[in-house]
């Protein structure tokens, strides 16, 4: 019992501490001390990667010091959890405008995928629990045999099973999207591109803010794919995984 109380206490202390850190970082940002605020927000993001407000503010701070690539990365991190956040999308478009890019922000997920992620894996999981309860109820009464509702119960149970499978798939898709990095943002202006692992540079360079799909990591480089399907090697220093 004492141990449980201690754990609860530690949680409260930790929670209060992280709230304190957040407030301090926010204060620095409001004082236009953006670099210090960025350092603080980055630290909070490391310990609490689920808090989208941290990434949002990080994006704003990066924006103010004109590091638009990093700002785009931070906003994309928010969209990973809340793909339908219009404020973030507007900020992203502002970043691309500042970069002088004709490239308008495009979501890398379809509308349906965005909706699945926006609902969140926990909500999908709760829905799956509810559906499994209805399915279990139908299963029980069908197996019990002495019921005159066998046929409607079979139909209801079948429907619930299909919905259950769909909600499990959605829960995992949402979980997968928010926990794995499939995309990255080029954060350096004119990031060099390599032709091989030995460091042979291409004359082609990637502009800041470009979103690339991650194929695989090769030592200190990432093999990435551009929107046009071209694959390239980029140094891990020049990109940030979403």
């Amino acid at each position, binding site marked *: 019992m004492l141990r449980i109380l201690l754990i609860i206490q530690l949680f409260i202390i930790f929670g209060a501490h992280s709230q304190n850190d957040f407030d301090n970082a926010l204060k620095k940002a409001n004082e236009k001390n953006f670099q210090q605020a960025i350092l603080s927000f980055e630290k909070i993001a490391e310990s609490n990667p689920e808090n989208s407000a941290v990434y949002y503010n990080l994006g704003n701070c990066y924006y103010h010091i004109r590091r638009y690539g990093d700002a785009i990365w931070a906003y994309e991190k928010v969209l990973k959890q809340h793909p339908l956040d219009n404020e973030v999308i507007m900020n992203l478009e502002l970043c691309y405008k500042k970069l002088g890019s004709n490239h308008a922000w495009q979501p890398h997920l379809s509308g349906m995928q965005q909706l699945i992620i926006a609902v969140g894996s926990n909500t999908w999981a709760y829905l799956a629990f509810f559906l499994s309860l209805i399915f279990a109820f139908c*299963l029980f009464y069908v197996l019990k045999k002495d019921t005159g509702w066998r046929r409607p119960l079979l139909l209801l149970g079948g429907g619930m099973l299909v919905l259950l499978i769909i909600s499990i798939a959605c829960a995992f898709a949402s979980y997968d999207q928010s926990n794995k990095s499939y995309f990255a943002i080029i954060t350096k202006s004119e990031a060099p591109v390599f032709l091989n692992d030995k460091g042979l540079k291409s004359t082609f360079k990637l502009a800041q803010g470009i979103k690339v799909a991650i194929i695989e990591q090769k030592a200190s480089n990432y093999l990435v794919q551009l929107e046009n399907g071209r694959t390239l090697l980029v140094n891990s220093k020049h990109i940030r995984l979403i």
Partner: protein
Amino acid sequence: MKLLLAHIVCLLSLLSWAQKPLVYLEVEPKEAEIGEAITITVKANIQGDVDIDLPAAYVSGYNTMSGMEQEIDYNTGKVITYFYHSQSGTLSKAGNFTIGPAYIKKGNKVYKSNTASVQIKKEYTPPVANHEFTSKQLRQPAFGIIETSKQSIYEGEPLLLNAKVYSLFSPTHLENYQEYTLEDVLDKHDIGASNQRIMVDEENIRRTTYFTFEYDKKVVFPIGKGKITIEPFKLLLLRGFESLPLTSSSAVIEIKALPGNAPKDFTGGVGNLKLKRSLSNNDFKQGDVFTLSLEISGNGNLQNLLEPKLNLPQGFLIYGDPEIKEDFVFGALGAEGKVTYDYHIQVTQHGKLELPATTLSYFHPQIEKYIQLTSEQDELIVGKNSNFQLAQTKVGSTINNAVSSDQPAPLRAANNDEENHDFIIGSGIFWFGLSAPILIALIGGIWMRKKPEIAHKKSKNQQKETFKKETELLFEIAKSKLENQEFGDFYSMLEKAFLQSIAIKMNVPLEATINRQLIMKTLYEKNLSESKKIEIKQWFEKCDAGRFGLGSIENNHLELIASSKLICQNIDK
């Protein structure tokens, strides 16, 4: 004979000159750190192939030397020849290691040396000031340092860093480079040529020529105050196919906070800056919008400058945020170039208007002072425009409308509800929550379905048990009837008991009336062997003979009971 004696004398003299074989192994230093070079020397008075037992953590170095030396033994006056084999290397783990023995193979004979132990401590890379080399570093075949342009800088001031390698051998290339790291430094920029090639130079340190090269040049802009440690870089230095792992020393930089008396027009600039102001046009009419450009040039932290605030008098309105144009490159002095801020301003009054000078302060790290830059002031002659109507906005303020505002949406407060966004899927709760109701329903449903069958089976088993007991009782009654000489009752009880016993064994429905016809029919249906059927028939005949013959012998009765039990026992075998 004389010849033989001469041979013996010669041989004896040679034997007296021959030396006792000596193989000695030595390791220097006896205590070292991980990655620090140690030298293993094998000294022997015999020449042959040298082989040394080395621990698995031993990493062979470049320096391998062999040679010979002659010494005079002053006791005997003899000249002794010693052969040397020395090699250097490093140990990659901490602990006590035994080096050796060394083996010298000469012909068919192998000579073994002593062993030597060496204590390896964990690596300690003390911070090293520029161009100060420790004795430990100078003992190494190669070492690395982090070169810094300054030991102490002001926050925001550019600091030039690069990795520098010193090597006793001429390296051809390097691999597995892990860059030096600075915690809490956000603003880092690579400068110089590609990091993939090394340009080797020569440098003399304490009368030793070292091959040196610089690598991974960066300009960083630390913020905050206090001491920051630059963590060492690591690399694999190669000469052809031979490689040497190398970890550099760390470096410490002191960051000084900017003086507290910052002027109001300080925009965060640290370096050496200049200010230039220009207007897009000189001919104005009331209501015209012109562009005021502020160009801040020079070197320092140009990339981190905040936009200067314009304090305009009445008659001017600023539209939105300034457009920022950056034109600088990162070099040894930080960001070198210019940043231009274009403000769009509307003239709202007519007549002779004065546009006051714009001031901007920056911190000069060399003279350690804030310096204020002032632009020239402009005088504007604005023509009257009777069609112009002033918008309902405070004069001199900034108009932020949807078109011109380039500010992102405001900062957000913490949302603690979002913590552990995916905790269900990531834990076992998910599968448990899903499978538990389904499993319970499955087990419960099947159990409910089987419940009557189980109950029926249970009652049948109970009935069977009762029937068995009844049969046993019948046998007992038959025995008591026999004792009372009531032969008629004895036979009828015995037959009933026998039939019931067979009925139990053959699983005949116990509700049915059990008689000989039913039993025989069941035996035929269950394909009982002919011998068993005959045995049962014979038993019935004996029973009938006993019951109706009236002359039975006592022994036959007991035999009949015994045979009835025996038949029942073996009926299903």
